[in-house]
């Protein structure tokens, strides 16, 4: 925990929020045997009651009340995330995704929120070198991993070769999907270098060491949607970056 909350510009809301006492422990819940009733069980139990079998309802109702209260009490968690080589401490709601942690609490707004459902790829970041959708990754799960965002790719003023290729080949129009596209392409080059296959590799029979053809690039980038349809230039940028990486 090398960074205190007060160092984080976007965390004022959090640092002003009182920490609920004893917020996390499981044993704060009622006895397990009372807490196991799901809503479905409850509804079923209530149905039985209306049919005239009354025993047990107060207990079920109490358990349901406990479940509802457990399901509505705020749950926070203290975390340390290693982002672009820097340890960042923060206390957040357990529901916070890595995407929201980056954007809302750590002021790393390069990573974009598109669909927020793992369908568009705008939120793509690298976790331990692998591209993932940060909108479907809980920040809590990412603790202990090396997270790289678009802000972490360049060395000072020297762009990452994939960033430079996107500039050179005009691989964007509005630019909103671009950070995700670039993070995705960086991982794509590594996946190809180590010999990973795609479904196109099977369709073309190139199942040993597939060439990074335009079809392979399109398939391997299909998790990143571009509403401006800058696809031809994105493919050109990835192709150029791949050739640069080989030379």
């Amino acid at each position, binding site marked *: 925990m090398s960074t205190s909350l007060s160092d984080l510009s976007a965390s004022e809301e959090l640092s002003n929020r009182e920490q609920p006492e004893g917020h996390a422990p*499981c044993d704060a819940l009622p006895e397990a045997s009372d807490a196991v009733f799901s809503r479905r069980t409850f509804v079923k139990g209530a149905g039985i009651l209306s049919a005239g079998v009354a025993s047990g309802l107060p207990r079920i109702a109490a358990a349901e009340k406990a479940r509802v209260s457990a399901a509505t009490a705020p749950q926070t968690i203290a975390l340390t995330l290693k982002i672009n080589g820097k340890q960042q401490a923060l206390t957040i709601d357990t529901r916070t995704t890595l995407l929201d942690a980056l954007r809302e609490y750590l002021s790393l707004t390069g990573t974009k929120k598109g669909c927020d459902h793992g369908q568009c790829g705008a939120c793509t970041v690298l976790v331990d070198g692998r591209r993932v959708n940060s909108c479907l990754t809980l920040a809590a*799960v990412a603790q202990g991993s090396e997270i790289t965002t678009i802000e972490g790719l360049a060395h000072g003023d020297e762009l990452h070769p994939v960033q430079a290729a996107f500039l050179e080949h005009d691989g964007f129009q509005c630019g909103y999907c671009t950070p995700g596209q670039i993070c995705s392409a960086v991982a794509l080059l590594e996946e190809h270098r180590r010999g990973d296959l795609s479904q196109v590799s099977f369709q073309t029979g190139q199942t040993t060491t597939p060439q990074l053809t335009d079809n392979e690039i399109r398939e391997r980038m299909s998790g990143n949607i571009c509403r401006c349809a800058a696809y031809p230039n994105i493919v050109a940028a990835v192709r150029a970056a791949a050739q640069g990486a080989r030379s």
Partner: protein
Amino acid sequence: MNPFQYQRAAAPEEAIHAVTTNRAAKFLAGGTNLIDLMKSNVEHPTTLIDINHLSFTQITSAPDGTTAIGAGVRNTDLANHQTIRTNYPLLSQAILSGASAQLRNMATTGGNLMQRTRCYYFNDTAYSVCNKRNPGSGCSAQIGFNRIHSILGASGSCIASNPSDMNVALAALNATIHVQGPKGKRSIAMRDFHLLPGATPHIETALKPDELILSVELPPSKFALHSYYLKVRDRQSYSFALVSVATGLELDGTTIKSVALVLGAVAPKPWRSAEAEKALVGAPATADTFRKAADLAVTGAKPQKYNAFKIELAKTSIVRALTLAAQGAQA
């Protein structure tokens, strides 16, 4: 998304204990489906048990050729593992046909087995009528837009289809699922793992709520030389199947010695046709044979208003997949 407690499990027993004592707790692996469903309020666990740090991420092969895949192995790593690529290319091809690189990097073997249906009405809580979410409430899909739904194995209670590509290949490869519960370990045949809906569509698998998937076991490979996963969908990439076919052939010259033929996206579970397989065994690997098998495979199909096209699509897809498998398209 409802609030939840977050816990990391260090051992399977710890994870199992957590869900045994709190039935509103759920295991969290890759999260590609669960977190999405929680955002839509379809799932609302009060505790998430993070099982990403359990040591079940290995792929190992026994001397007899049996291969064990840890439940925590990511889809990308499974599809690209040398043993799987060489001995079970059908599984590699099926996995790489699904989702995107990002999602495959996150999704696990165990999680993919537990993937929920993509039925629009199940995924949209604006519809209270859904027998999976609210047992006894009815089925919106049967009177709604049911283009992606089942034509085989459905019931009056539910017509949802299983969306997984991996599952179709695992059924074709005759996998076994190893699980652990509070009382110990047991095994479930892949072909028995997913349940038909009947009157209880909210119970989707043979896995009990307090059981954890540990590994998936594949018998020695018979179809390394002749297999194919054909996926037909609205887009070329990153789209769920309308129909898929996983097939493997063991050939003796041009005669079919043994075969697996399983359909995806047409039923609530990977749909194996024993009759079609029986018709193929001992027959020559020709278009005629394949067409007969295709007819048998969709016997009893009951289309909904918007998915009658799936019957013909399944038949032509079966013929094409068998033809490509016989050619050894992957070699």
